[in-house]
């Protein structure tokens, strides 16, 4: 009986857990975009009917792109990090061959048409001291491995690509080869530079047959300095380029079995080269960037004769960085002359295909595969709403009338006349055009569901994406900047500040992104309008700060223009405010501002108070210091709560009708430290620290637990997951903090005045899956219950209600507990397929989930990013404030009309009957 009750309760919960969508709702609220990452290797296939470009990227992806549209035909995501690092990719018509991994190389051959895996075999990395590098190439259906060993020799091994059997192995003696020797592969030759005194020698080895050629560079290049660089020129012929550092031109050499041939012309050193085969000959393609134009030219390799039909220039898209030619093919055109297809890879990770002579065919913004910061912002109000706003904006008063009802009335009349005028003008077709945002439909809707997703990529690019369509509205490329790197985890991040939202009409919204300079590491702020992408400071929006930034945050109050200042703490503990005008606001709040910094390596957490600030300068004074780690331990994460979060319910009603008050401390930060010691093995410690008072509120330790560790910190609870080494499974632990049956302070929480110890409830669960990222849902007022979004390694995004993770879930349920609404404890969390919010839209390599409230209390907008991007919306407590999609408006209108008509008719009939009766 008891068992059946449990089953019943669970079933009811399972029914409540069905957030899945109907089939016809697919793609209605969500979209997915797939990416491949920064290109590393490319191979163009022009033989088959659907022309494809095969690519391998730094995200360990092998893919085929449709050459006409740039869309992904097939894609394979290999193992993560080093294990799947692609060392080599090439194709030979029938097979695409990849070599990936470190230490153990996995060689895979793929079917070019459908991407099926044809064969897979491994080669172990030879354990040799003084190993310089290992190179790979594909030549005549054989895979060659070139192992260079310093001061010794070069080993060349040929493998059969499908079976993995060794075909041959050759050894070339190269005792002159130093550890820093620069050797490049120009299939089927290996070219090396060797410096002997003042002389620079170029060795070239034939890798398929024996034969070594050695020549002094000065013999055919004239005087040669020792600072010479050697690069291979991609393409169908063994060509290398030799450039002297500081020279404006470079030479190219064609390697041959019996020596080298020098290309007759010198080329500018900035030119990007590629050798494409054309019928029987070879063409050297040359690309040069000149102030917004890409100048292209082609000449035959053998004679150096310029080809007139390949000369031309192309307007270069402004958002695109300079690029290299990754691959190119030339073919005769239908009409006459020649045409080339050139695959460009730019330094902002974009992949573009040019049809030369002609235009850009497509551009793939692969910068979106490495997103470092995300923010979702409201759109501005529509033009008509803006006019109303203007009417009530007192600053706009310029009629010389005092405010008050007379002034308001005059203003209203004036604005209505203006509205009338604009209406007449619009009808006549003379009116001023609507604003750009209005035209593009980028205006706020009534439910606040239409927003702008602003993302900053590690590639130094910022994008504005429409959340409903997923379309890129604007993009900005930032030069010479890079994101900050987390010292402990190596993840990129860029602090994003929303200084002013769109709510403060007529001032535009303003956002700032904190990055650092590529060379000096000093802080750089990019200030821009998030709706249009227009820079709002200087000409390019970049403000060099001139110091290294240690900590940064946004003031919680704005200045007169409603602009919130950014407070920056530099390496010397000096404080700066951006913009200057926010200084007075910062000074006014200084007594209550506390800052903290954490050093991941030393484990030192330092708290600063701004109480000593004067009107002229802000002074940060150290007020607390704690040292969390000793020995090999490091701080790997510092997680605070979302600053926009609101907690609606202050307590939890228990079965006996008493209230258990939540411990809601906005200054509480979770700090994770990880380390290794012989007793505890891999351990992780979690500290809950009040960063104003510097006291450790709670700390907990797990033995034999290792990464991936993910933490979600919200309201009065903390949730974290780790991989248990002991049980070899992912475990999730939840902690909930309560003040007790009495609330210490009902108005506001004070960290300094309330040193109380919270009661901590805890529970651990098993999740049958590997977690990539976790995030809690957030809504406007915090009334809707919270769900946890978990991105799993298999590409699914799971939505788990908080009740399932509640630390108060008891093993044996008492009636009181049942009254409270807690469900009995089950160690394993289920993964029902209805709770996968991205149904079959697999999202690979999730790096983060961003949640933001919409205008509807029930709905939370979710943006998942990583290699792919996925956007959807979730309603944790169902859409209680929204009519159903299939709500029958017609029926309800018909019923209402019918009722009204009937009541009128019956009224008439009743009065007639009453009259008749009166006459009786």
């Amino acid at each position, binding site marked *: 009986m*008891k068992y059946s009750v449990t089953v019943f309760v669970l079933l009811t919960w399972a029914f409540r857990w069905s957030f899945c969508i109907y089939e016809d709702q697919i793609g209605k609220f969500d979209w997915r975009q797939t990416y491949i990452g920064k290109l590393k290797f490319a191979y163009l296939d022009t033989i088959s009917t659907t022309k494809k470009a095969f690519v391998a990227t730094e995200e360990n992806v092998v893919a085929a792109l449709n050459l006409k549209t740039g869309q992904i035909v097939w894609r394979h995501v290999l193992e993560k990090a080093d294990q799947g690092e692609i060392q080599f990719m090439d194709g030979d018509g029938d097979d695409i061959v990849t070599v990936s991994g470190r230490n153990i190389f996995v060689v895979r051959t793929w079917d070019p048409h459908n991407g099926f895996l044809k064969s897979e075999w491994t080669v172990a990395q030879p354990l040799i001291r003084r190993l310089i590098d290992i190179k790979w190439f594909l030549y005549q259906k054989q895979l060659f491995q070139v192992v260079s060993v310093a001061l010794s020799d070069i080993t060349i091994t040929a493998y059969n690509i499908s079976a993995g059997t060794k075909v041959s192995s050759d050894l070339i003696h190269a005792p002159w080869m130093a550890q820093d020797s620069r050797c490049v592969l120009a299939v089927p030759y290996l070219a090396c530079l060797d410096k002997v005194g003042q002389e620079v020698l170029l060795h070239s080895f034939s890798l398929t047959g024996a034969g070594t050629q050695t020549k002094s560079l000065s013999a055919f290049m004239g005087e040669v300095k020792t600072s010479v660089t050697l690069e291979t020129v991609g393409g169908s012929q063994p060509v290398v380029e030799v450039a002297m550092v500081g020279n404006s031109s470079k030479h190219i050499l064609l390697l041959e079995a019996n020596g080298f041939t020098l290309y007759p012309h010198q080329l500018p050193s900035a030119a990007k080269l590629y050798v494409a085969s054309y019928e029987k000959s070879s063409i050297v393609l040359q690309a040069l960037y000149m102030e917004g134009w890409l100048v292209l030219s082609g000449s035959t390799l053998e004679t150096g004769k310029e080809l007139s039909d390949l000369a031309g220039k192309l307007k270069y898209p402004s958002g695109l960085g300079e690029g290299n030619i990754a691959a190119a093919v030339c073919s005769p055109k239908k009409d006459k002359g020649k045409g080339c297809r050139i695959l460009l890879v730019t330094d902002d990770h974009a992949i573009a295909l040019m049809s030369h002579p002609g235009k850009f065919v497509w551009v793939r913004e692969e910068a979106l595969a490495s997103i470092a910061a995300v923010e979702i912002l409201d759109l501005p109000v529509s033009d008509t709403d803006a006019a109303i706003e203007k009417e009530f904006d007192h600053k706009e008063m310029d009629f010389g009338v005092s405010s008050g009802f007379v002034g308001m009335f005059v203003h209203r009349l004036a604005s209505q006349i203006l509205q009338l005028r604009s209406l007449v003008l619009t009808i006549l077709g003379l009116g001023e055009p609507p604003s750009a945002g209005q035209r593009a439909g980028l205006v706020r809707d009534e439910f606040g569901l239409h927003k702008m997703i602003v993302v900053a990529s590690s590639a130094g690019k910022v994008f504005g994406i429409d959340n409903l369509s997923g379309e890129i509205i604007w993009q900005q490329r930032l030069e010479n900047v890079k994101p900050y790197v987390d010292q402990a985890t190596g993840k990129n991040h860029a602090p994003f500040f929303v200084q002013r939202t769109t709510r403060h009409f007529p001032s535009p919204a303003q956002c700032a992104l904190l990055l650092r300079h590529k060379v000096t590491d000093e802080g750089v702020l990019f200030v821009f309008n998030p709706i249009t992408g227009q820079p709002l400071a200087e000409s390019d929006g970049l403000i060099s700060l001139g110091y290294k930034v240690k900590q940064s945050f946004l003031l919680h109050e704005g200045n007169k223009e409603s602009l919130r200042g950014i407070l920056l703490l530099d390496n010397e503990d000096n404080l700066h405010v951006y913009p200057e005008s926010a200084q007075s606001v910062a000074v006014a709040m200084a007594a209550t501002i506390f800052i903290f910094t954490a050093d991941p390596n030393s484990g030192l957490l330092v708290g600063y108070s701004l109480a000593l600030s004067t009107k002229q300068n802000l002074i940060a004074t150290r007020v*607390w210091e704690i040292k969390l780690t000793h020995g090999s331990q490091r701080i790997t994460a510092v997680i605070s709560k979302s600053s926009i979060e609101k907690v609606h319910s202050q307590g939890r009603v228990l079965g006996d009708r008493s209230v258990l008050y939540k411990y809601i401390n906005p200054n509480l930060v979770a700090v994770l430290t990880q380390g290794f010691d012989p007793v505890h093995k891999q351990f992780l410690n979690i500290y809950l620290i009040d960063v104003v008072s510097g006291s450790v509120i709670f700390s907990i330790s*797990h033995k034999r637990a290792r990464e991936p560790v993910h933490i979600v910190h919200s309201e009065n609870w903390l949730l974290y997951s780790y991989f248990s080494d002991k049980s070899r499974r992912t475990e999730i632990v939840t902690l909930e903090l309560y003040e007790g049956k009495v609330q210490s302070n009902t108005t506001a929480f004070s960290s300094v*005045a309330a040193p109380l110890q919270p009661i901590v409830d805890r529970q651990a669960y098993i999740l049958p899956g590997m977690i990539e990222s976790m995030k809690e849902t957030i809504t406007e007022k915090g009334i809707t219950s919270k769900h946890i979004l978990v991105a799993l390694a298999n590409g699914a995004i799971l939505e788990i209600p908080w009740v399932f993770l509640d630390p108060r879930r008891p093993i044996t349920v008492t009636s009181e507990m049942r009254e409270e609404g807690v469900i009995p404890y089950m160690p394993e969390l289920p993964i029902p397929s209805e709770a996968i919010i991205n149904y079959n839209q697999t999202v690979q390599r999730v790096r983060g989930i961003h949640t933001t409230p919409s205008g509807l209390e029930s709905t939370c907008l979710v943006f998942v990013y990583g290699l792919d991007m996925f956007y959807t919306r979730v309603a944790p407590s169902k859409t209680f404030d929204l009519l159903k999609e299939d709500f029958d408006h017609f029926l309800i209108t018909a019923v209402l009309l019918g009722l009204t008509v009937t009541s009128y008719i019956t009224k008439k009939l009743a009065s007639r009957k009453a009259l008749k009766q009166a006459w009786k």
Partner: protein
Amino acid sequence: MFRYVCGFLVFYTPWIFGFQPDIVEYDGHLSLNLQHSFDHVKEPQFFDRGTVDIQSIRTGAVTLKQKPLSVEDKQKLKALAEKDGLYRLRAFVQALDGRETSFLTFVKACSLAESHLSDILTVSLDHTGSVIAVSMSTSPAICEGRHISHEHLQHFNTTVFVKHMEQGPVPDTAAYIQKLEKEREARERGETKDNRSFLAKYWMYIVPVVIFVVLSGAANPDGGAGTGGGGAGR
């Protein structure tokens, strides 16, 4: 001048604060050197306040040696309290292996004065028993701007708490399986003795019957009345 306050022993009671872990794998002795500052400047000067000896970190037995406040210090504290300044305390901890770590903590000067120098020092330890934080608070922690006379600012009345790290929970599969086993056994042995009342047991059968009766009665009121009337007429 150097009058030592007699050793003040606190036996810390685990059930009040509930942060005694189940197993403490370590024990030892800790000594804290305290220095404090009443300066209201960025780089304050610290002066000796006293020492705290924690004889056993497992039990939390403590010996305190603290100097009383000098007249000068009292004035400084009151001046700091008026400016709403911060009283800063530096603690130097000598670990078992001889390493010295320094910690910094603060309280509002006014709350220290108004609590008559009753402060609480919390020493937080990590899983190996090393000190990670020393934090100070006062009891009571209030700032009302009351006038404090000098005699209340004589001796520190310090309480020391040692806070251990807790052991993380693990999924309790054993208890859950046990529970399932028990339920299965109970099912096999036949239904467990049901000691609920008759109504509680069979309400699901009774309610529909009652509803049916009520509904049929309500649907046909004059039919019943008519029959009754007919009977009377006969």
